[in-house]
């Protein structure tokens, strides 16, 4: 069964460093998302991406965040200058075309900022 994959599974970085989290969505999906979950809290929406552009972003997704689909398979989230409060589990999700389709999530990248 097709699945969303994410790398790395765990990333430790120092405050102020840049990180890139990588995702490979399900191959025939065209809608992509990033969410995050701070330990013990709700899963929160960050950004949605379709047709090579951001379609919606949350208040969390400020100028230090960016997303890119550099080729036909990868979808990345970059955090330019990490802060302690960026420590969280980051989930990538994708869904198929059409309306009212399921969003499938990857296993997540645990980001720890020290």
């Amino acid at each position, binding site marked *: 069964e097709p699945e969303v994959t994410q790398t790395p599974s765990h990333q430790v970085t120092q405050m102020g460093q840049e990180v890139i989290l990588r995702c490979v969505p399900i191959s025939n999906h065209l809608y992509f*998302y990033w969410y995050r979950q701070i330990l013990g809290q*709700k*899963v929160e929406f960050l950004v*949605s991406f379709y047709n090579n552009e951001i379609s919606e972003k949350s208040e969390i997704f400020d100028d230090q965040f960016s997303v890119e689909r550099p080729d036909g398979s990868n979808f990345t989230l970059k955090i330019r200058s990490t802060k302690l409060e960026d420590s969280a589990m980051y989930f990538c999700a994708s869904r198929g075309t059409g309306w*009212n*389709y*399921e*969003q*499938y999530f990857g296993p*997540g990248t645990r980001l720890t900022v020290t």
Partner: protein
Amino acid sequence: SQQGEEDPQALSIQEGENATMNCSYKTSINNLQWYRQNSGRGLVHLILIRSNEREKHSGRLRVTLDTSKKSSSLLITASRAADTASYFCATDAAGGNEKLTFGTGTRLTIIP
């Protein structure tokens, strides 16, 4: 309460019993999706129910949706130890961009 609130927050039952979790939300929706999350792991999609549907089944799972009450329930029948996890509802708001708003989750523990 916030969009997507589950209750109870925690539930412990004996293996073989049925488990029911509820979710309430505030805005009109296109669909509601249920996910399972094992501790510290990814989100596994369980079932999607559309706003024009009232009930849906998948294996041992039964989901209901009452749009007039803005609530949904997830029933897991004949529970197994492997069902121990956190369960979240997530709503796709009508008129939105299909971003999901998650609830706080129900922590389900199945006692062998």
